[in-house]
């Protein structure tokens, strides 16, 4: 494996030997360490001193199940912190097969360009015919030109315009831009460097090198079996995907409604995972779609419209919440159109969905106005009007432009789909993770609500700090392996699971890691990220939730009562 370094300012391409200090790292561990080592923490995130680091996980490109996750790291133009943005799709496996341990993009190109990687090396390509076009059209053009089996990453117009909600889209198993490095605006960073697309062509390459093939196969098959037999990984996610959470969070009183005013929404059933499943079955979509080859969980789906035509894919709980109960919209097909828009334009559905609700809070349009929301996307955001740019830049900016206090952000990033007063464990994560308000960084929801990895009462403060801390550490480690984070449901419940992951890594690399090394790795990743953030000017004052979370929310009428001292103790390890 090599480090591929591209200086976009002069198109210099270098394949470097992997330094010893990076040898044992992959995925998020590698991106965060490189960003800490090489990026000035005080740089302007959209300027030439920021870098983007693309790293497949340690297991990516092998036959390990559900191991195709890509990490992209840099300084976020939204949060001003370090960011690791993670996506499925085809890219991670192809980076690994091309022998690229990490690709570092630095500087800034004068002209818009694309980067094409093949077994023969690096080529810069002309992108004049795809600039200004949406991700769907661009994917079709590029697949026509370069082949249907290539991995394609693109920025949409959102990234071209350097939105802090700009994503890097990653083509899925059908070549559609449904997977995204979504949060924190790394698509805006790639756009600031004037790179429209990265194409990965691994034709002519067989596989990734594995030192002990027999031991690897044994561990990999055992891990696959654990996943398939686990009720969440092998059945729940496969059938319903993440949208099943709509009804669960509503029942638990934690589904944020009308900008975090209530934990239940009267329109919930209409936007539920059950309704989505029924629509898919009736209209000829696919409820169990894998975002990358080798995923046994297949939590994604292909959602068709009333006419039976494909409308969108990778239609997630977070999206349905942000444009749904958060905005008081109860029309699933309308929300599917919004998902399609965001995937095509290349913006984070959470950031833009929450911003849409803040636009409603500001009185720009009424809560519940689905046609108004669709109109804002098509005629303001898409047309890059000042209002469109405002909403594309996220909740914090919309809130400040209209003098609002009820703005649900941490480090300027919008909160995701769980009220922290009803799911206190994830509230601790939102406040303290290095990433800004982020639910995946320490998904306490699993243990607060979903009975995964034990149980900690979501309505009480006890145990939440420890829960968030442990999950943040474990997640940082899993994000290094290239495994989809959803394998964590099995890892948390089955004592055999994590040892199999360690066995796979040892068999592949000839290492002798033990379980404790996994914990140490996770802790180190968090320490590196915290160090960057501190140098970037982030203090504990930013590890807090907005003050309106001290007010009660029905139906449970609880508040977020975890103290500042308790939040500051999360990183005591």
């Amino acid at each position, binding site marked *: 494996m090599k480090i591929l370094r591209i200086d976009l300012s002069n198109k210099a391409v270098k394949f470097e030997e992997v330094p010893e200090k990076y040898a044992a790292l992959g995925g998020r561990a590698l991106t965060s360490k490189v960003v800490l080592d090489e990026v000035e923490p005080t740089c302007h995130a959209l300027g030439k001193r920021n870098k983007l680091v693309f790293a497949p996980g340690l297991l990516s490109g092998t036959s390990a199940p559900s191991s195709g996750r890509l990490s992209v790291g840099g300084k976020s133009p939204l949060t001003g912190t370090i960011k690791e943005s993670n996506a499925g799709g085809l890219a991670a496996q192809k980076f690994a097969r091309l022998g690229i341990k990490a690709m570092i993009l630095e500087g800034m190109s004068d002209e818009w360009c694309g980067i094409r990687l093949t077994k023969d090396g690096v080529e810069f390509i002309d992108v004049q015919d795809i600039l200004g076009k949406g991700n769907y059209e661009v994917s079709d053009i590029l697949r026509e030109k370069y082949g249907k089996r290539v991995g394609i990453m693109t920025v949409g117009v959102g990234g071209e315009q350097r939105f802090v909600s700009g994503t890097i889209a990653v083509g899925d198993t059908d070549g559609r831009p449904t997977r995204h490095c979504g949060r924190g605006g790394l698509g805006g960073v790639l756009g600031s460097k004037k790179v429209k697309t990265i194409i990965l062509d691994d034709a002519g390459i067989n596989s990734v090198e594995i030192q002990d093939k027999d031991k690897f196969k044994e561990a990999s098959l055992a891990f696959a079996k654990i996943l398939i037999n686990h009720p969440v990984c092998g059945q729940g*996610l496969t059938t*319903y995907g993440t949208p099943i959470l709509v009804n669960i969070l509503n029942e638990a009183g934690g589904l944020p409604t009308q900008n975090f005013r209530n934990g239940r929404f009267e329109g919930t059933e209409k936007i539920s995972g059950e309704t989505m499943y029924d629509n898919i079955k009736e209209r000829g979509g696919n409820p169990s779609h894998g975002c990358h080859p080798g995923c046994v969980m297949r939590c994604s789906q292909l959602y068709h419209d009333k006419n039976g035509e494909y409308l969108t894919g990778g239609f997630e709980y977070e999206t349905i919440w942000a444009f749904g109960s958060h905005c008081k919209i109860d029309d699933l097909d309308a929300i599917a159109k919004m998902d399609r828009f965001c995937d095509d334009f290349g913006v984070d559905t959470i950031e833009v969905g929450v911003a849409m609700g803040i636009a409603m809070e500001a009185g720009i349009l009424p809560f519940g106005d689905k046609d108004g929301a669709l109109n804002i996307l098509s005629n303001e955001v898409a047309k890059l009007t000042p209002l469109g740019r405002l909403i594309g830049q996220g909740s914090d900016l919309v809130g400040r432009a209209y003098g609002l206090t009820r703005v649900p952000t941490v480090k300027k990033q919008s909160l995701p789909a769980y009220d922290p007063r009803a799911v206190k464990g994830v509230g601790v994560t939102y406040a303290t993770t290095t990433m800004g308000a982020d639910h995946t960084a320490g998904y306490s929801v699993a243990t607060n609500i979903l009975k995964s990895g034990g149980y900690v009462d979501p309505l009480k403060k006890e145990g939440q700090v420890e829960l968030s801390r442990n999950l943040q550490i474990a997640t940082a480690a899993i994000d290094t392996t290239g495994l989809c984070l959803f394998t964590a449901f099995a890892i948390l419940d089955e004592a055999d699971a994590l040892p199999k992951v360690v066995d796979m890594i040892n068999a592949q690399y000839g290492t002798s890691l033990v379980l404790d090394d996994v914990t140490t790795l996770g802790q180190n990743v968090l320490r590196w990220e915290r160090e960057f953030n501190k140098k970037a000017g982030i203090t504990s004052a930013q590890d807090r939730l907005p003050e309106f979370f001290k007010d009660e929310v029905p139906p449970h009428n609880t508040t977020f009562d975890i103290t500042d001292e308790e939040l500051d103790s999360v990183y005591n390890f």
Partner: protein
Amino acid sequence: MKIEVRLFAYLRDMVKDYDKGPIFIDLPDKSTVGDLVKYLDFEDEVLIIMVNGKRELEEKVLTEGDRVGVFPPVGGG
């Protein structure tokens, strides 16, 4: 006593005539969550059960008008 019950995901297909939304089930006073599970014939299922929005185990005693939600194991993000 009347209990307000909602079933979710594929559990909906396992109870005759259940479509969606709340149904009202009459149980003897002092029935438990476990008694409700037996009534629904769900004893072989792994379940997440919420009573009035809070997760409860089989021993929990139900009272008149309680709102119960019953889920199979699911995950998400």
